[in-house]
């Protein structure tokens, strides 16, 4: 089956399945940390720091305030790792893409297959987080207060796709693996801190305006809306914003990757 851009879904699926096979060999080791991360943040920031914030944040209990944004960030992290370090290693040291490309697979299939897998990883991270939040809600913490929370996996998939494609784009540009330290320190870390997870970005002059142009801000806003409501047009704008970035990158990334392999 073909998608626009001559993506052959069967080939992309083969690449997805390759990654799933590798994960299947190690998931017992890999899955557990996905649960620790949310617990550490929720306990450390939510219960620890939150204890000193008697009024909460924006009229909300601090724990409930940060939970949706942290969930978005965990999807971001899950997807990012797959299409940065992991993808770079497969592309260069392991020469795996050379091997794929000598089969009927083409570059755009690889880009799409890696995207599918990164979305799956984002879902694994994000849903693990959701499970922890839901468990705490059941225990009386009220971290989820809207029925729309049931659609969170869809939002997490969209967030995962966005960051997977941004990662693929960066990967298509660099020649040295060391450059990812810039990607993490100067891109993902600032996003994590200044996208409204822990405090409203309007704290800083033009904060809201600048943040509007960055992806995690929209991811956080969307997740917060779905977890707590009430939903309004701003959440739709965020969903469209993320989808538009995906669409643009879906077009650009295969071209960039192709110029790298097709020489």
């Amino acid at each position, binding site marked *: 089956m073909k998608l626009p851009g001559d993506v*052959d879904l*069967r*080939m992309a*699926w*083969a690449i997805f*399945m*390759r990654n799933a*096979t*590798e994960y299947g*060999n190690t998931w017992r080791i890999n899955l557990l940390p996905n649960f620790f991360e949310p617990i550490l943040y929720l306990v450390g920031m939510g219960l620890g720091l939150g204890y000193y914030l008697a009024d909460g944040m924006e009229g909300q209990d601090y724990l409930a305030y940060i939970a949706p944004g942290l969930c978005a960030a965990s999807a971001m992290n899950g997807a990012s790792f797959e299409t940065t370090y992991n993808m770079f290693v497969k592309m260069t040291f*392991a*020469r*795996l893409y*050379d*091997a*794929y*490309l*000598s*089969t*009927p*697979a*083409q570059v755009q299939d690889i880009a799409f297959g890696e995207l599918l897998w990164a979305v799956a990883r984002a879902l694994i991270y994000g849903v693990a987080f959701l499970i922890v939040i839901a468990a705490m809600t059941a225990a009386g913490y009220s971290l989820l207060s809207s029925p729309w929370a049931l659609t969170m996996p869809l939002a997490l998939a969209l967030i995962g796709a966005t960051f997977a494609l941004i990662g693929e784009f960066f990967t298509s540009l660099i020649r040295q693996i060391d450059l990812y330290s810039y990607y993490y320190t100067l891109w993902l870390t600032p996003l994590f801190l200044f996208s409204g997870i822990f405090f409203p970005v309007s704290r800083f002059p033009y904060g809201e305006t600048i943040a509007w142009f960055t992806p995690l801000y929209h991811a956080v806003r969307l997740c917060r809306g779905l977890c707590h409501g009430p939903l309004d047009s701003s959440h739709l704008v965020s969903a469209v914003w993320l989808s538009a970035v995906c669409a643009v990158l879906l077009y650009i990334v295969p071209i960039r990757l192709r110029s790298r*392999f*097709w*020489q």
Partner: protein
Amino acid sequence: MPAIEAKNLRKTYGALEAVRGIDFSVHRGECFGFLGPNGAGKTTTMRMIYRATPIGEGSLTILGLDVGVGTNDRAIKRRLGVVPQEYNLDERLSVRENLTVFGRFYGLRGGPAQTRIDRLLRFAALTDRSDTPVQHLSGGLKRRVQIARGLLGDPDILVLDEPTTGLDPAVRNALWQQLVELKRRDTTLVLTTHYMDEAEKLCDRLVIMDRGGIVAHGSPAELIAQHVTSHVVELHIESEAELESVRQRHASAVSRTARLAERLLLYTDRGEDIIQRVVHESPHVVATLRRSNLEDVFLEITGHGLEEAA
């Protein structure tokens, strides 16, 4: 229609002309070889054939499909099997997982896929290693996995870039047998190698490349007949001075002399006469008479490691 046809095929990397206008045509069902010293352009030519790199100038047609038309690439690759020069297996997966994953690119899945993989594992004598992670295999075993992988799509053309480099003699022989078997089943083989005995055994026709061009072509027998004498007298002489003096003494009686380290080679069509003369005049020298082979042609043509006289 030939399996592969190249006309004035070129490829440059920046200022470097890796392939400078070569013509060749591979018939269906034959084994076609590319020989040549390091950097001659063999791998570059293979990569153009298996669509890992665009062609520069000229034309290349594979199974009737013009590679100049980009949309043909998938169709071409579907009918090709590739065993690249460098290892690029999935080291994190087992042998069977590797074949299962790559089989999906050829539409193999489920039970039929495993049946085919079992057959390929038997073919490559890997059945008892099928669950070993590839990273724990020796180089020769990895090469065999790569060959099995190259056959997953039941290719019409199998491209092998130095398939037996790093293999022990027993495994090489086993592989040759398997390649002959494939050829009998009408698979076209395209092969590069640095082993002249391999080329001589396997290839119906071959070309010798040097510095990006084709410098000779023909069947092994034709090449030997065209480029070298029927026999070679090989002398092992350790002393430099003595080697030179023996060479002076016999140079005029033979067609050509050559040196390879402490070996002196006398090329001649009168092998019996010459070896008797040598043994008579230099009784302590170890002399052997042999028929010329492709290695002699290779050295004659590419001139590498060779000092000429006569």
